[in-house]
């Protein structure tokens, strides 16, 4: 008797109604391996990431991420730019967390100079960094459902993004590349009335974000596509240096905002506003849920920063800088909790006005390195779900 085989293909192949994912047990039939290139121009790769996938039927037996299509040599360019020009490049490697990436550079230089940043600048930076985090996560809260076939949530996510982007544009002049950090503080002071508008924007986003959760998070189709799919164990997280919301979704309780605090985070952690949430399952569903949690934490932090900025006495928001800014000879490593994970800058200076070397440790590169381990044994339909849930920016991988 021939065994009947139900083979799922495409978006519907997600283990519905008792059907097995990817056509039964592996090794049931003699098949030939097929090499399939996902990307570099595949819409699910958000840019130009290429995955060379070896398939046995529908099942993935091997995956090799091929990176570098978007390599811009940013570390080499850092070496021929002064510390103001570096900020321009630093906010471009991860275009969704521009403000947080700028922050790492200026904090490294400030540490080398032993420079004290005015208190108002510290709180304003924290506020803008948290709004940037919310913006970043809202992007993925919208784009991930699209990859799974749900188009609606992105309209809700972009409505929220627009609300926040408006206040970010009002203060910095940019919608993505803020270019608002300077060594010693911020470029300009806050416009009059901006704090009220920022607090209104945060309140509006807080009110409406649950709609995204209602739309998709409990959706049965979404659950079928994501729950138990692409599970990453905490061991794998530490083996590959995965960080950020992906690591926390697997139960790795690590957040630089709390564990190696910078800016105003120590005080915010003391007040209990900064909550570090961790998941348990480490699957696509808990990674998505982690973003939702973090958005609400970020909005709480933003509110606390606004309240603090209101009560701070009059003072400057930046330091008077010399015409030619030179970092003293030495080296420092400055890492920050970027929206996508740990973002580190290793700054080596020989006393010139440009760094001798500025090594960039970007979150997405390490986060994507774990893909071959996660994808092995999955089916093609789950590949998109897993890839989307790794929350990466290709510019951040290729630098």
């Amino acid at each position, binding site marked *: 008797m021939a065994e009947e085989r139900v083979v799922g293909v495409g978006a519907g192949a997600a283990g519905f109604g008792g059907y097995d994912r990817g056509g039964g047990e592996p090794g049931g039939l003699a098949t030939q391996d097929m090499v399939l290139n996902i990307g570099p121009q595949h819409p699910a790769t958000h840019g130009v990431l290429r995955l060379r996938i070896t398939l046995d039927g529908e099942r993935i037996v091997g995956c090799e991420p091929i990176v570098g299509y978007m390599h811009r040599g940013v570390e080499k360019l850092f070496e021929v730019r002064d510390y103001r020009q570096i900020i*321009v490049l630093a906010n471009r490697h991860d275009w969704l967390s521009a403000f947080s990436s700028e922050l790492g550079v200026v904090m490294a230089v400030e540490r080398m100079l032993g420079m004290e940043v005015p208190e108002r600048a510290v709180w304003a930076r924290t506020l803008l960094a948290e709004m940037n985090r919310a913006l970043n996560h809202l992007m993925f809260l919208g784009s991930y459902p699209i990859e799974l076939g749900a188009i609606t949530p992105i309209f809700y996510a972009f409505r929220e993004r627009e609300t926040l982007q408006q206040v970010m544009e009002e203060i*910095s002049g940019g919608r993505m*590349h803020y270019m608002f950090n300077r060594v010693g503080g911020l470029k*300009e002071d806050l*416009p009059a009335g901006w704090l009220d508008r920022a607090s209104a924007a945060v309140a509006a986003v807080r009110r409406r974000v649950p709609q995204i959760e209602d739309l998709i*998070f409990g959706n049965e*189709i979404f659950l079928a596509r994501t729950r138990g799919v692409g599970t990453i164990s905490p061991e794998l997280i530490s083996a590959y240096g995965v960080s950020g919301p992906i690591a926390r979704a697997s139960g790795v309780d690590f957040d630089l905002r709390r564990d190696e605090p910078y800016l105003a985070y120590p005080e915010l952690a003391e007040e209990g506003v900064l909550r570090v949430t961790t998941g348990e399952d480490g699957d696509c569903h808990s990674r998505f849920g982690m973003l939702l949690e973090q958005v609400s934490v970020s909005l709480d932090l933003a509110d606390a920063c606004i309240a603090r900025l209101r009560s701070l006495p009059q003072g400057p928001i930046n330091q008077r800088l010399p015409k030619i800014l030179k970092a003293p000879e030495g080296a420092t490593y400055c890492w920050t909790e970027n929206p996508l994970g740990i973002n580190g800058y290793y700054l080596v200076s020989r006393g010139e006005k440009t760094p001798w070397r500025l090594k960039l440790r970007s979150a997405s590169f390490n986060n994507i390195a774990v893909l071959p381990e996660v994808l092995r044994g999955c089916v093609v339909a789950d590949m998109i779900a897993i890839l989307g849930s790794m929350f990466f920016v290709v510019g951040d991988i290729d630098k």
Partner: protein
Amino acid sequence: MSSWGSGLIRGLRVTWQNLARRSVTAQYPDAPPELPPRSRGVIALFEENCTVCMLCARECPCWCIYIDSHKEAVPPVEEGARERSTNVLDRFAIDYSLCMYCGICIEACPFDALEWSPEFEYAELDIRDLTHEKDRLREWMWTVPAPPGLDPAAAEPKEIATAQKAAEKAAAASQGQAAEETRDDGGGS
């Protein structure tokens, strides 16, 4: 655990709630966006303020500013004085196909010859037309908005501090003088 389909219904409820609401989409060409004054749209040049010091061109991280100039002799103002020479701007162009919109040139300019304008509608069919020469850069100048007022907690601009210091000094000096005068009067009577 809720029954199968409750998640779908919850999602549909959101859709229904939003169905009756006003749309938030702005129909762009018909409804122009409201941009804040700090918005970085295009760089405007106020030629009269430019002294051809080349700081902007040198500080630009992508070298998209082109400046040509020549020196011209200025006849002496007073009789017998030496002839002076000034820089005259021949060409000032910004190549917007290279520009990264960082604003470093505007920050670097010591004479406020460059300003941001929120205008953004200058897309071109030919990439060479994205190089704006100085007459086109001057046209943008008339679209530059006034900078926004600052937060009440912002530090006072240094001009105010200097003026205040000068005023206090003058007040102290005049007070001292007045005191001296009264003492003189006392001595005289």
